[in-house]
């Protein structure tokens, strides 16, 4: 049997779409939703309720529907969509859900993106108020965005057959939309739900761009887009949702909101059933009754809770043979699955058996709730309107206006007038005075909704009187909650879970508040409504992640030499956002084998690495020395031009923050280096001090990190290699001393060569512009070929420096370590009156004798490699926890140079313990280790001069 009307509806009856639901095949038409297509086949049962397993159907026609949850399986599986918002396409497969969806384990192939949009006036909602608001603003010349969640404009007009100004409302809508779309500076966004309102006119909207195309969706188009709209003024024309009345058995499929049934009729050409009882507290449901009666539905009865039925509408019903029973309510329903009958009794009448009316449909209207979620998100206060039985916007906001049914106004012309006023005011406030009056449409509608009775529930079986249909929360649950002593709506929401489901209480929230107020005997006006929080409707995680996925998730930073490392087969380490070569394995080598080879080659001959990621900051100005003296723990102002000094930087708390070298380029110019990970932090640190504390200093700092490619050339033969590529440079130890620098040409390219060493070996650091990095690197490789020059990565760099006891910031330090702890008291000036961190050194904690200090650890068994991160204990047996810990292993390696393993560690009173044996728990055993100085290789420093 079909419930499709012979004519009418905005569907393309000439095209047939095939789909399946719960495995059964059906057909529908373009323009249908999954819900309308199912209802056209008389399918009302969509799923089962989450807790009680009761059958559930379609209650509303739009995104406020609490029950029609489905899992769409094609083209890609997506959980928890509402059948009422899934546009039908050929090949759609879906199944009903019991309140819980399923995530696909396949990767989602769809694109999601975001786009920024700026406008003067944003109008949310393309019903009559929104359309008039947008058109008024557009005619003023303002930049306007109109966003609406439906696939076409019209709002409430989509669900009625009204005439506006003596022509079908669709024509009026089409004219307005056509003018908007042809006006420059106007963007009309269909299928776009404004879901979040934030500060300063920031509105987020989700546009569903290709879902309705099904399998035909182009793979290159973003399936969904988050519009990040920044607007100067906003007009919220978000309309109103019809509110049900709660009664026993109100959850059966076939029980639907009256206006939604009317929408299914007029928009989709679908009848909700064959025989309907209409239960209302206001006038608007009469139109549903009349329209459905005229379309062939047997309206068994109109039950009006008000003592008197409206005479004109009652007469219209009578003219169609429809009985109206005023002062009555639906007290219950019957049916195993779908509703089969309604029980009707006088409201508050004498006890007794109610009338049973056979029907397959019950249409309900309990009045209208303005859609105030976005207004509330914009921090607008709400006010209870007793006449409406709903919360309405309770104040004017500076840049957000509300127009139309969202204010509680339900007359079409009045809504349009509000839209016109709001649109004109918004445009004017944004600097666009009026540009032409928009005529207000006048409707021929027979029903206005205003004159209603506020009725939250009909007394009856409380255990089957559902307040939140999705959460299976009943009047019993609410009364149980109030009976426990709970008073706050927020508590009751949490106790009952009302309003926390997929629909976030769009139809249940107000009723719950009403029932609670009745139960507690308080005025609703005194109740604080629960908070509306973004998003207004659910938004997929992928849409919010947008394009920031995969390689675009977080930028990978690479040096100019990166392509060479890749070609050479390097394996990389992430250091901050940088990719740094960790080691360069040769055939079949693992990490340890490669690193031992790289270390050996470097210590015995020559190696080189890519040091370009080190931060480099040019510091210029007359006060540059004074400035650096404040930032570093040692003195930089006394450094001579041409020379280099190592320095440590501390935070105000005296803890080591960074280290690096400082070279004096000229009298008023230094270049400082930072660690890779702290480059930006150190530059920001410098700027912060200069700008906020010492603006009087004549100093400017400029990052040159990426201007330079930096190549440490390391090992006893480095001098020979450098000499070959820098013929103009006297590389002798006498002419080019340790901790000095020279400007010269390397491989024909201007270069700055620094004689510094992080390995203890004779070493040079060659700096050329990043453009010349590869060419110079290759020239060095060629020149070093005869010495077996070996590129090495960060791992070898770590081993070489650890053998020398040089700490790595972030590995040996953790924000609790001072320079003194690292054995670097020599780098802390005693002469300077002050520098950042100095005062903190005098605190009690810094003078404890048992501070953790950097030492070396040599496992008694020289083949045992301590895992980094191991703890150090004092005793050779582990006592019951908690065990006193002396410190931990910060670095640990096998060493080619030492012919054994070794480690660095922070150990309590470490320097006093040198020579002692302590223990390191490794898995279930204790490894004895000897505490040593941190410098383990070439203690005399003989190697650095070659």
């Amino acid at each position, binding site marked *: 049997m079909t419930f499709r009307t012979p004519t009418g509806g905005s569907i393309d009856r000439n095209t047939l779409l095939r789909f399946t639901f719960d495995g059964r095949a059906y057909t529908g038409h373009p323009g249908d939703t999954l819900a309308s297509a199912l209802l056209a086949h008389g399918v009302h049962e969509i799923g089962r309720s989450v807790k009680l397993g009761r059958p559930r159907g379609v209650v509303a026609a739009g995104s406020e529907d609490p029950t029609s949850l489905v899992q769409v399986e094609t083209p890609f599986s997506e959980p928890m969509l509402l059948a009422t918002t899934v546009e039908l396409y050929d090949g759609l497969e879906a199944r009903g859900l019991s309140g819980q969806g399923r995530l696909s384990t396949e990767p989602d192939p769809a*694109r999601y*993106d975001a*786009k*920024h*949009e*700026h406008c003067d006036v944003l109008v949310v909602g393309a019903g009559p108020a929104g359309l008039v608001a947008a058109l008024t603003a557009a005619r003023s010349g303002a930049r306007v965005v109109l966003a609406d969640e439906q696939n076409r404009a019209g709002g409430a007009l989509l669900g009625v057959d009204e005439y506006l100004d003596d022509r079908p409302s669709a024509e009026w809508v089409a004219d307005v939309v056509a003018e908007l779309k042809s006006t420059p500076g106007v*963007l*009309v*966004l269909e*299928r*776009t739900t404004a879901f979040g309102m934030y500060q300063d006119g920031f509105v987020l909207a989700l*546009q*569903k*761009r*290709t879902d309705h*195309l099904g399998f035909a969706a*182009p793979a*290159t*188009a*973003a399936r969904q*887009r988050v519009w*990040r709209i*920044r607007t100067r003024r906003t007009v919220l024309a978000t309309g109103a949702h019809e509110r049900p009345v709660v009664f026993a058995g109100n959850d059966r499929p076939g029980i639907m909101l009256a206006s939604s049934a009317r929408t299914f009729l007029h928009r989709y050409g679908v009848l909700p059933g064959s025989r309907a009882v209409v239960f209302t507290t206001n006038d608007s449901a009469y139109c549903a009754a009349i329209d459905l009666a005229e379309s062939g539905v047997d309206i068994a009865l109109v039950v009006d809770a008000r003592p008197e039925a409206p005479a004109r509408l009652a007469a219209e019903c009578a003219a169609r043979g429809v009985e109206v029973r005023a002062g009555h309510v639906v007290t219950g329903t019957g049916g195993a699955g779908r509703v089969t009958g309604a029980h009707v009794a006088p409201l508050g009448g004498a006890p007794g058996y109610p009338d049973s009316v056979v029907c397959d449909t019950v249409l309900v209207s309990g009045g209208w709730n303005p859609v105030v979620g976005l207004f509330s998100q914009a921090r607008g206060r709400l006010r209870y309107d007793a006449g409406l039985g709903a919360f309405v916007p309770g104040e004017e906001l500076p840049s957000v206006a509300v127009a139309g049914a969202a204010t509680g106004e339900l007359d079409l012309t009045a809504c349009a007038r509000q839209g016109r006023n709001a649109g004109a005011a918004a445009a004017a406030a944004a600097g666009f005075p009026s540009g032409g009056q928009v005529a207000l449409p006048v409707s021929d509608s027979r029903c206005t909704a205003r004159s209603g009775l506020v009725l939250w529930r009909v007394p009856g079986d409380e255990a089957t009187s559902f307040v939140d249909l999705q959460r299976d929360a009943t009047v019993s649950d609410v009364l149980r909650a109030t009976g426990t002593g709970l008073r706050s709506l927020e508590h009751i929401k949490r106790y009952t879970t009302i309003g926390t489901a997929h629909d976030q209480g769009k139809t249940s929230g107000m009723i719950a508040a009403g029932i609670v107020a009745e139960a507690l005997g308080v005025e609703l006006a005194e109740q604080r409504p629960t908070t509306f929080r973004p998003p207004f409707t659910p938004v997929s995680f992928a849409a919010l992640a947008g*394009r*920031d996925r995969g*390689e*675009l998730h*977080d*930028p*990978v*930073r*690479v*040096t*100019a030499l990166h*392509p060479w490392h890749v070609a050479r087969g390097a394996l990389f380490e992430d250091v901050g956002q*940088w990719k740094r070569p960790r080691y360069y394995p040769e055939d079949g080598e693992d990490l340890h084998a490669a690193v031992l080879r790289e270390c050996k080659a470097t210590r015995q001959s020559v190696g080189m690495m890519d040091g370009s990621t080190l931060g480099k900051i*040019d510091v*210029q*100005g*007359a006060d540059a020395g004074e400035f650096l003296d404040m930032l570093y723990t040692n003195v930089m102002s006394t450094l001579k031009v041409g020379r280099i000094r190592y320095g440590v930087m501390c935070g105000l708390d005296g803890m080591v923050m960074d280290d690096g070298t400082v070279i004096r380029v000229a009298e008023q*110019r230094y270049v400082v280096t930072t660690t890779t990970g702290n480059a930006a932090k150190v530059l920001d640190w410098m700027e912060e001090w200069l700008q906020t504390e010492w603006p009087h200093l004549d100093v*400017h700092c*400029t*990052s*040159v*990190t*990426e*201007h330079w490619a930096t190549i440490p050339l390391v090992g006893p033969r480095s001098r020979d290699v450098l000499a070959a*590529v820098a013929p103009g440079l006297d590389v002798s130890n006498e002419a080019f001393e340790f901790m000095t620098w020279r400007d010269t040409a390397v*491989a*024909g*390219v201007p270069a700055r060569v620094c004689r510094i060493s992080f390995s203890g070996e004779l070493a040079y650091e060659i700096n050329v*512009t*990043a*453009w*010349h*990095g590869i*060419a*110079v690197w290759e*020239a060095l490789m060629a020149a070093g070929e005869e010495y077996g020059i070996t590129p090495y990565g960060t791992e070898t760099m770590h081993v070489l420096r650890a053998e020398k006891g040089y700490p790595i910031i972030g590995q040996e330090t953790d924000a609790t370590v001072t320079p003194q702890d690292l054995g670097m008291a020599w780098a802390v000036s005693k002469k300077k009156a002050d520098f950042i961190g100095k005062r903190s050194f005098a605190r009690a904690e810094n003078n404890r004798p048992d501070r953790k200090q950097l030492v070396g650890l040599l496992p008694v068994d020289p083949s045992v490699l301590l895992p980094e991160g191991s703890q150090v204990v004092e005793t050779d047996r582990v006592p019951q926890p908690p065990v006193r810990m002396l410190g931990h292993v910060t670095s640990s390696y096998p060493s080619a140079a030492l012919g054994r393993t070794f480690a660095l560690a922070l150990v309590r009173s470490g320097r006093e313990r040198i020579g002692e044996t302590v223990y390191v728990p490794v898995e279930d055993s204790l490894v004895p280790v000897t505490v040593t100085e941190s410098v383990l290789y070439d203690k005399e420093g003989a190697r650095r001069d070659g």
Partner: protein
Amino acid sequence: MTADPTSPLHAWTDGLAALAPVLAVAERPFRSQLTVRVSDPEAIAAAGSALGVPFPSTPCTFTTGSGPFGDVEVLWLGPGEFLVVAGPGLQIAIEEVVRDALGTARGSVVDTSAQRTTVVLEGPLVRDVLAHGCSVDLHPSSAPAGTCVQTLLARTGIVLQVTGEDAFTVLVRSSFAGYLAAWICDACVEYLAAEVTAPGTVGA
């Protein structure tokens, strides 16, 4: 011995060119770029005269001019902070000239030529593409030609110049250049297929 320079996006040349006709995108490598910090108005004026281009006095703009170093642009990067941009190979000479012009005024001049690379983007869709990652209003009424802003494009910092009706220049830190190129290519995907922009199929 000579050494040929390599630009950060040399491997992207074909990939960026393939974005036509959605956008004409190309790296403009090896430009001379100098970061100049100076606040003294006389020194600023002197530097402008020396280069043949007045330094921008309005925040978030750039100026162009011609002088001894040919066409030169000066970008406002911050109060008292400018980026002087000229053709390749002029950085050393310009540094000297600007340093002379500043004289004893407080300030600094730093060769930052290889610190950033330059990407030019042109075409009617350029604003649409950039709007996928740039939160600044690029409408001509808000960002006319001559605008120069430092901002974020997706997850990298950029200097963005509006150079013409539908023409933009993006300066990006060299280490982020690959990310920028990948991002631009990705953002153009949306516009590559003709059916996407046909009305009635996919939303605006």
